[in-house]
């Protein structure tokens, strides 16, 4: 808020000062002063265009009028309000200021409406895709439960298979709900997400514990920075990203035997990398990979690709909300996902421990 006032004042002053000096130049070197009013009118137009709201434009119109009156009309360097030319230039400049400000404000409002519309559209796409996807596991759960209740002819093996199906598809629903909760967490406040400094060790620890709970047999090779590094983040959301990426490898990398999670400390940022040596993805997919759910591509949600769509889309949205970007790159064998978070803030490790 304060910043924007400062910025606007700076724009106002610098444009007016430039206009003033150019006018002085014209007057002294070329001895013309008919263009002075035009020049100031142009300055007022520029100021109204680049500042927020009406105030700065109107202020500049007043200053402009006074400046012309004082410096560039006879008597020079004295105020004289009896000449009608001054009144006319004042009215012209204030009108320019008002109209331009009104126009730019309107354009800005339209941009906001457009962004809001896009959000609404994204939410609708998401809702449609999710409702559609939820039907599949619900079919298993509903159908199996009903059969188990009413059909006494089932063999022990059939019963067991149905129960396993219920369990698996509930797991899928749990993951889906977690991702949706993350999306609402980003979406609910228009303000930026709330970041707290989080120790990387603890973040990775809780991610691995959670991941091991779901995939007890999957080993993850870790490499972390030696010292304790703090990164400002929403811990729940970044955990979700890491879990989604690890899970993505388990579910989609096909045949692989190496899953690696690396955290690398850079000068003023921390790099996260998740790499597997599985099947990788087609090169032309690496860009589209992250907008499966939110993009306009509605056909995608229909295809059978269990959760990958929403998982990676959520990752991209979370990292974007943190001010970063997530990328996927094929390696010689497999794929590496990478995102970078800034350490910024004060990060002196307190010494009085």
């Amino acid at each position, binding site marked *: 808020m304060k910043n924007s006032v400062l910025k606007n004042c700076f724009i106002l002053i610098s444009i007016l000062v430039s206009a003033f000096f150019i006018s002085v130049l014209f007057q002294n070197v070329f001895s013309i002063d008919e263009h002075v009013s035009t020049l100031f009118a142009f300055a007022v137009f520029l100021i109204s265009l680049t500042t927020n709201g009406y105030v700065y434009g109107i202020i500049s119109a007043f200053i402009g009028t006074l400046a012309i009156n004082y410096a560039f009309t006879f008597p020079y360097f004295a105020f004289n309000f009896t000449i009608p030319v001054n009144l006319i230039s004042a009215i012209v400049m204030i009108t320019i200021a008002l109209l331009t400000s009104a126009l730019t404000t309107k354009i800005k409002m339209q941009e906001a409406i457009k962004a809001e519309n896009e959000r609404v559209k994204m939410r609708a796409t998401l809702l449609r895709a999710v409702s559609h996807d939820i039907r599949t596991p619900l079919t298993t759960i509903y159908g199996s439960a009903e059969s188990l209740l009413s059909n006494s002819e089932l063999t022990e093996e059939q019963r067991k298979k149905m129960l396993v199906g219920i369990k698996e598809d509930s797991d899928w629903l*749990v993951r889906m709900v977690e991702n949706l909760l993350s999306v609402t967490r980003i979406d609910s406040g228009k303000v930026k997400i709330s970041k707290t400094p989080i120790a990387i*060790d603890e973040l990775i620890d*809780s*991610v691995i514990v959670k991941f091991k709970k779901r995939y007890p047999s999957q080993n993850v090779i870790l490499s972390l920075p030696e010292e*304790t590094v703090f990164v400002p983040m929403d*811990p729940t959301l970044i955990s979700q990203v890491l879990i989604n990426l690890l899970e993505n490898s388990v579910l989609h990398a096909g045949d692989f035997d190496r899953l690696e999670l690396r955290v690398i400390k850079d000068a003023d940022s921390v790099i996260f990398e998740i790499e597997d040596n599985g099947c990788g993805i087609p090169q032309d997919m690496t860009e589209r990979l992250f907008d499966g759910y939110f993009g306009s591509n509605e056909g995608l949600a229909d295809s059978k690709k269990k959760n990958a769509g929403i998982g990676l889309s959520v990752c991209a949205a979370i990292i974007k909300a943190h001010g970063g970007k997530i990328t996927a790159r094929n390696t010689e064998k497999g794929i590496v996902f990478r995102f970078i978070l800034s350490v910024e803030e004060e990060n002196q490790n*307190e010494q009085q421990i």
Partner: protein
Amino acid sequence: MNNKYKILVVEDESNIRNLVSAMLESNGYRALLAASLREAKLMYDSHVPDLVILDLGLPDADGCDFIKYVRGSSPTPLTPIIVLSARSNERDKVISLDLGANDYVTKPFGEAELLARVRASLRNHRHSADSGKLPGGKFELNGLEIDYDARRIFLCSEEIKLTQTEYNILAFLSEHCGKMLTYSAIIKAVWGERCEDSSVKKLQVNMANIRKKLGIKPGETKYIINELGVGYRMDG
């Protein structure tokens, strides 16, 4: 039959109430059921349960009110309380833990997870009830030993050198073994400070050192369990 632990299940959803009750009964506990705060208070006062499993969203009040009730006015204020909730925000966890809940389980949960938490809370309650910080008090957990009098720590009989602060943190966790302790609770106990970003950082740096010295790798749930953004719990 009478020496079964009595567990009060406070939950308004009948399906979940039945599920939890079945999980407990089939594992040798006795389940007492309540569907509202009013019923919960009645059951609590007349049956004096050994543990409470509490849902936060009750029809007639917030579950937190029951935590306040148990910790505040009842004759058995130390009864362990495990909160069972669909709210997964760190803030909700911290609020109920700081009110005095021992642990927090997020829905959906599995039988194994719930029973592990129940066992840990009951064990901790017994432990703190009979050992406390009496002279000559010792703590033992899967090879980790704490000699409170000498302020020394042993891991599989080998001494681990900790700084004063590290020892204080570990000792505090051990005294409340099985209970989830929030950052602010630990900071208050160890440094006597209010909980701020800088003190949480200090705690986390110390905790990282403790974990390294005890040889706990990231992702291992040995001795210290880390609940990101909330706090720590000591457990096997």
